[in-house]
């Protein structure tokens, strides 16, 4: 029931805010804050209760489940479930949700009701994606988060917002529809094999797909996830969407929407099509490496702070791609860490960009400089997150990238060597951020206001979490371990015996 409650809380919170926003402009943000915090508290208390019982060798990796028939005639059910992986991402979702509400506290002054409605519905869609165990339901949530995001960018974004919103929407929708076709294909193949029409993940996970078909179905899923992640040839929507979106939009995009792509690969591509996943592992890793280097180089050449951070996301998501397709425990643990820490560190950088924009009315780094003098607190925090982004030991990002590279080394040495060069590039662009904005000669006449109390709070929470993850990542690793062990075991057994019933992964 907790899982349903999460979705209900956010959705009703959104509608309530929309309606009450007509009377009072301040009410929606309080409602939003309340509903997101409620969701977060529910999750954390559940997690704390559970934390004792999760151990690395635990087999019952599905912690909680909810099931209800939805469209019975098609075999569609409202089936939610969470394992450690889902749980981490759900906590991340609501954590960033709180941050997002706090960030937009003063930035958004117009149409607050509709704004928080969109924000909460994105969160509902994202958390639905992380929980859905019915492929139709998954696709449904996958699409539900798009429209509010489209509005968020299109209404509250900066100058070129409409273009960016279109681009975002059409890219993701087009790739999503390919996924829908793949889901339908799987549905009918399963029905042909067994005579049962169902979209249930647990049932479909055992489907034996003819190899020729399996490739195309996998591609249907992969393209949808690769666009979301984004992997290099499919990334062009991302810099535009990021740079035009309001601060919160960028935060949610980088922190959550990109994660849904990685989650989809972990949850659907590998368990449903392990054999094909093996086939495409090398090209996928290659694209990951390309993404790392290409993203880093382009990040270096940006003058717009938000575009810079956006391209660093492309680079960091390359690591995720490599990690996923290394198919070993270390790399996958690193992937989970990367998902969490990237959300926090990049989110913080986007928030910083938003704060700078609020103060200086520009995002052009050539017009900044020497800000440390006026804003030492922001400078220090900026330095910290720039360092986090380049993967300095002591921050969570280091653990993540280290684990990924360690795991990938076992899978493919030369690609790993290339990927490692990404760390050097990331040092270059991260230092450039600090140099250009906070150090160097001071620009004439800049209004410099350091953090307000609210901003201090936001940044303190983010700082504590990124350092906490860097010093003590074990809880995250433990929580994700059962799910990851299962994934690894699938990948180990699969190529030997294709016919083997894979139901064990998901049956409980």
């Amino acid at each position, binding site marked *: 029931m907790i899982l349903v409650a999460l979705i209900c809380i956010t959705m009703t919170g959104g509608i309530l805010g929309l309606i009450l926003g007509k009377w009072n402009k301040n009410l929606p943000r309080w409602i939003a804050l309340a509903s997101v915090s409620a969701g977060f508290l529910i999750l954390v208390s559940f997690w704390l209760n559970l934390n004792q019982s999760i151990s690395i060798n635990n087999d019952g990796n599905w912690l909680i489940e909810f099931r209800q028939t939805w469209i019975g005639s098609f075999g569609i059910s409202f089936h939610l479930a969470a394992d450690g992986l889902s749980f981490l991402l759900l906590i991340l979702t609501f954590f960033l949700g709180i941050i997002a509400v706090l960030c937009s506290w003063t930035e958004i002054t117009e149409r607050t009701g509709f704004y928080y409605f969109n924000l909460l519905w994105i969160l509902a869609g994202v958390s639905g994606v992380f929980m859905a165990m019915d492929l139709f339901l998954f696709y449904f949530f996958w699409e*539900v988060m798009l429209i509010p995001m489209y509005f968020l960018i299109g209404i509250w974004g900066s100058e070129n917002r409409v273009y960016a919103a279109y681009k975002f929407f059409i890219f993701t929708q087009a790739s999503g*529809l390919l996924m829908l*076709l793949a889901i339908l294909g799987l549905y009918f193949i399963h029905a042909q094999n067994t005579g049962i029409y169902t979209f249930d993940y647990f049932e479909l996970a055992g489907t034996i797909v003819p190899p020729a078909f399996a490739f195309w179905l996998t591609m249907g899923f992969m393209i949808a996830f690769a666009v979301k992640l984004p992997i290099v040839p499919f990334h062009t929507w991302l810099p535009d969407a990021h740079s035009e979106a309001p601060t919160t939009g960028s935060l949610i995009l980088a922190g959550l929407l990109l994660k849904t792509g990685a989650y989809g690969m972990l949850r659907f591509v590998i368990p449903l099509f392990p054999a094909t996943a093996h086939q495409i592992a090398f090209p996928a890793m290659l694209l990951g490496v390309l993404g790392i280097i290409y993203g880093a180089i382009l990040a270096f050449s940006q003058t717009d702070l938000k575009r810079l951070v956006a391209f660093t996301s492309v680079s960091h998501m390359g690591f995720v791609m490599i990690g996923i397709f290394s198919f070993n425990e270390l790399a996958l643990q690193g992937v989970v860490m990367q998902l969490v820490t990237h959300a926090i560190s990049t989110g913080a950088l986007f928030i910083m960009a938003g704060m700078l924009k609020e103060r200086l009315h520009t995002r052009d780094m050539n017009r900044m400089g020497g800000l440390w003098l006026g804003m030492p607190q922001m400078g220090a925090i900026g330095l910290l997150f720039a360092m986090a982004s380049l993967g300095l030991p002591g921050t969570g990002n280091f653990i993540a990238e280290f684990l990924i590279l360690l795991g990938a080394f076992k899978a493919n040495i030369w690609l790993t060597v290339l990927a490692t060069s990404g760390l050097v590039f990331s040092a270059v662009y991260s230092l450039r951020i600090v140099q250009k904005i906070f150090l160097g000669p001071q620009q004439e006449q800049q209004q410099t206001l350091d953090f307000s109390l609210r901003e201090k709070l936001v940044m303190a929470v983010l700082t504590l979490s990124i350092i906490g993850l860097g010093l003590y990542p074990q809880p995250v690793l433990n929580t994700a371990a059962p799910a990851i062990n299962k994934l690894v075991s699938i990948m180990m057994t699969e190529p030997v015996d294709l016919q083997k019933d894979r139901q064990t992964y998901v049956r409980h």
Partner: protein
Amino acid sequence: MSDTDFSALMPLLLLAGSSVLVMLLIVVKFSHRIIQVSSLFLFVLSFTSLFYIKKLLPYQIGTLFVIDDFGIFIIGLIVFSGLVVNILSYIYFEEKEEGPKEYYVLLFLCTLGAGVLAVSKHFVSLFLGLEILTVGLYALIAYLRKRHHSIEAGIKYLILAAFSSAFLLFGMALIYLETGTMEFSAMASHVVSMQVLPPLFITGLGMMLVGVGFKLAVVPFHMWTADVYQGAPVPVTAFIATASKGGVLAVLLRFFLAIDGFRFQTVALILICIAVASMVVGNLLALRQKNLKRILAYSSIAHLGYLMVAFIPGNTMSIQAVSFYLFAYFATTLAAFGVIAVLSGREEDAEEIENYRGLFWRHPGQACILSAALLSLAGIPLTAGFTGKFYILAAGIQKGFWALAIILVVSSVFGLYYYLRVITAMFTGTGQTIPEEDEKHPVFFRVSMLILSVLAVVIIWLGVYPDQVISYMQQLQVK
């Protein structure tokens, strides 16, 4: 004809009788308001009578008609769409013309024609239904005769419809020549054992498809659509987009299922070409339009293409998918045109996208209804259009029509762009281009808004919890 024959035909007879009754009311010089309300009542009466004849089904009436679940369902949709159009017409026409009363007579006749099509199983009833429908439409399209566009649209429709009727007749004649019968089931027994259709039959079928294609506005017979949609009064456009197409599609489906035309490769190929062309051309042509009525016209071309995708596999799922999609499409299209009709002023229709700039901040209710309708047309989840599109894809993929499914998906991505453009316009800016509603007919305005809200609820309901409707569709059978 026996008594049961009469009661089985009750909904259609009521429609026919209503037109006569309304004509008499006009003779007595009742006001527009009374005529409108009484025709609303008559529509409701005809609609409710559908429920009474349910227990008779399926029922054959001579060789001309067969009243079955599917036919009743389609008639229900058509009468409902007539009902909605009737409600929307009052505030639209009240201030425009001297005598908007005859309009209702024509509306009843057109609804009757479309309804007849839905239950025909014979060329004669098919042709009669089609002519009742189109002859009424000529007058309806050109109804606002003081406007340039209307006359132009009326003439365009008149010429092309007459032209297509000629083709249809010639095609029927050729098929009659080949099979010696005009009844679908008799034709079916003639071709049942054939592997390849005889050339005369194919030619006839092709000619018929030309004729029907014009009515359905599928590519390449779509040239009239945008102009007629733009030129006709908004409620009439809504009627053309829904009822007239629904009826024609229903009879086409019945015909093809009867003769099992889908198993002949040539026929399937022709249909596939039409479907692909409609989806691609419709969506592409809509991209650069600035007029909402024209956008909806091209979008309707694309949607008929989608419907053909459900139609082509010719399996049991086809009937369900077509029925469900028609249901979704009717609700959606009526809602979209309804908002246009409500917003239209005395002089100008609210048809330019510019008119909708900032609508959400001025009239949130109307903007939400229109957004729901457009999102549904675009096929976004939580709306009827999504479930419908899903149904269609399922029907296509089940029989292995992957190429069609992929083209559907790709072309509907293009479609997103123009729907989003309208939605974006509604949410941005604070434009004041539309004169404020003068609230001259508050009661009718409220009623119109009520029915539009109901449609919006239907759209969302079909998107969120379509299970009941789907199980209803699964029972539909074509006899």
